[in-house]
């Protein structure tokens, strides 16, 4: 059916007959308003408070200490702290490493899983398991496995002749350890979406390419990837946003150490907000983090929209 009808890019609501136009608008309104209402209800007060208190020297635990408005004081204090930039760099390294690995592995495995074979759905469900585990348990599990004395990973390393590595006591090793754990946990997310995206590409297109003598590699890069790009891109954006928020893992694996070298920005926010209870300062830091994530996402979303327009 799709082959014989030219794509009509005008929005369907512009099609005549007043009945349909109003039903379109009614549909938009009724389908969107519950979501909008719930989100505004849930987000309004906290976001407002976050920005509001970021301009104050305020601690929710010690309100007796006079709440002083400090304007941009919190921001100035934070942005002039060299430790903070070090945390951003570390977070950036972690995010880049994780998202890259997860996308590459996820797309690869998803590609392999698109064809039906015996037992595929059981294997597929099994592969989803790391994602299903509670993040608290994941942190502890990998901490246990990476333990330099009793951990199974160092044990396996010694069996193939390597020396025991102090995974969690050194910054760079810890970065890789955390990336290994995060990738382990979230690659299934990409696999799921990638598989769905690949399976949506009709066979007829592949058959046509085969008839033309295209190799599998060529087909992948010119047909499979571009046609599944929108869903893959959404997966990328979602993973990017989520890995910026990661701190449970570092908390369980290293506690942010040695020193503070494995603290992500999220970790610093958590520390400032809860251990220190410096509500004002934590809010300012959260706002900074939010601005960066929003900025990055905007760039990606704009790219995504351009991709969509091509179709």
């Amino acid at each position, binding site marked *: 059916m799709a082959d014989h009808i030219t794509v009509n890019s005008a929005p369907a609501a512009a099609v005549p007959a007043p009945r349909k136009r109003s039903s379109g608008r009614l549909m938009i309104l009724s389908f969107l308003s519950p979501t909008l209402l719930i989100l505004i209800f849930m987000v309004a007060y906290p976001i407002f408070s976050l920005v509001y208190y970021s301009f104050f020297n305020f601690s929710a635990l010690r309100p007796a200490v006079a709440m002083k408005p400090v304007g941009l004081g919190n921001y100035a204090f934070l942005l002039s702290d060299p430790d903070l930039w070090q945390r951003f760099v570390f977070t950036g390294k972690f995010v880049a490493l994780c998202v890259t690995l997860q996308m590459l592995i996820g797309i690869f495995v998803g590609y392999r899983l698109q064809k039906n074979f015996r037992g595929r759905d059981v294997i597929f469900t099994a592969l989803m398991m790391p994602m299903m585990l509670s993040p608290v348990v994941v942190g502890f599990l990998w901490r246990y496995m990476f333990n*330099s*004395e009793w951990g199974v990973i160092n044990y396996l390393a010694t069996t193939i002749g390597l020396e*025991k590595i102090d995974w969690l006591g050194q910054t760079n090793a810890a970065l890789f350890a955390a990336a290994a754990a995060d990738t382990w946990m979230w690659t299934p997310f990409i696999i799921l979406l990638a598989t769905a995206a690949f399976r949506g590409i009709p066979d007829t297109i592949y058959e046509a390419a085969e008839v033309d003598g295209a190799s599998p590699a060529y087909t992948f890069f010119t047909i499979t990837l571009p046609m599944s790009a929108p869903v893959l891109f959404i997966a990328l954006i979602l993973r990017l946003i989520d890995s910026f928020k990661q701190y449970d893992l570092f908390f369980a694996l290293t*506690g942010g150490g*040695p020193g503070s070298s494995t603290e992500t920005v999220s970790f610093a926010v958590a520390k400032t907000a809860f251990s220190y209870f410096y509500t004002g300062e934590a809010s300012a830091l959260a706002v900074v983090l939010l601005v960066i994530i929003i900025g990055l996402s905007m760039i990606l979303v704009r790219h995504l929209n351009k991709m969509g327009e091509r179709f």
Partner: protein
Amino acid sequence: MSRTARMRYMTSTFIAAAFLAAPGISQAETTLTFVWHAGTCADALVEIAKDYPDKSVKIVPALVPYGPEWHNKIASEFAIKGDAFDFAMWDSQSTAEFAGGGHAVRINDIFATSNYLKPEIFPAASLSRYGEYPDGSGEFYGLPANQDAYGLMYRKDLFEDPKEKRAFKDKYGYELAVPQTYQQAKDIAAFFTRPEKGLYGWGQMGGREYDFATTASNSFLWSFGGELYNPKTYEVKGYLDSPASIDGVQAYVDMFKFGPPGSGNWGFDEVNAAFQQGQLAMAMQWFYFNGSNADPKVNKFADRTAFGVLPGAVGRDKLFRRQFSVGGQGMGINKYSKKLPELTKFMEWYFQPEQQARYAKVCQTGLKAVLESPQWQGLNSYNRQFSVALQYLNDYWHLPEYPVLLDQLQEEISNAVSGAKTVKQALSDAAEKHERTLKRAGYEIKRGDSVPDVPDQLISPVGVKDIAAVD
């Protein structure tokens, strides 16, 4: 599905959801909720509370994992002035923060009106340690719920083995015995460090999380005559980074040489695990864990394990000091709880000797009547040492800014342990950060005259000329 059917479905779903959302059938009884970290002590409290004679009152535990979450849960509830819990056990160091913020009930008021609850039923030192804020004010905001101290555990089979004793005497020139100073501990640790046999001399915490590293490093620091700060003038520079403090922390960092590789970021759990596997000859560990470390079901070497008091040190001024970290929790009452009368009655029952004797079987009570009873010392193999240890305790800053100061010190000590910074640099950076924190919090730092190399002489001197041995 037709539109009307869908609407009906949605409505009934929402009604069902609202019904399901109801928190539960409310009962005629009163519930007293408490927050604590999960463990045998919380289990004991709940178990004992089951026998509370007033059956219309129910004690409900709301347990959290040990660590920052424990502090966060309590702090968050206080921040919103909520009454989700009525009383809570928090780490002794947090008393200043919570009491200082005005969130804990002043126990003096309860002492005044209660017939049984009086300051005298607790040892003065314990009451002060777990409840007094500010220091020396006589204002109490908590009662001793579980006393704890840092201690020493060691393999008595190794120490009593005649072959080992002879070899040690030959090599070092004095008898092999429980170390009285950290210098002796170092010799003994070096002696017992035999990596080929899987044995190491000394196990201690170095972890970045919570208070792991600093609990240990402070014990060294204080014993060498160092101080964290000057409570009267709020000076940190010159105290935290004094030569005596540096001596202490350096001794602490050096001891990692005698621990298994990777022990630099250990917490109490890893110390326990290593000792239970027979990897350690000596270890620094909380008395709290001695119960399970003496249990053969948990510790392969339980029958060969003995408990002692941590060593002291001879400082650079040739004086001997023995000081180490206090632990344990106090029981504080949520000021915003609406059940103070019922809670007071429960506490009057709970702190009776009968209940506290039951509690003492698995945890450490703070009730004088039980602590002074003849049976208490014989309850297990370490209570005697515990009562000795109580004389040598020292604590972190009793300031509301404690969590910030702790985290900053933890960071720098962790840097020193990993070798990223020298001890001198780490302590000096920590002092810098501390003073900045105190200034931002509004404290005025009165810079005094020069500070002695051994600040302990200035603050509350505990140095003595001769090594005061304990066993």
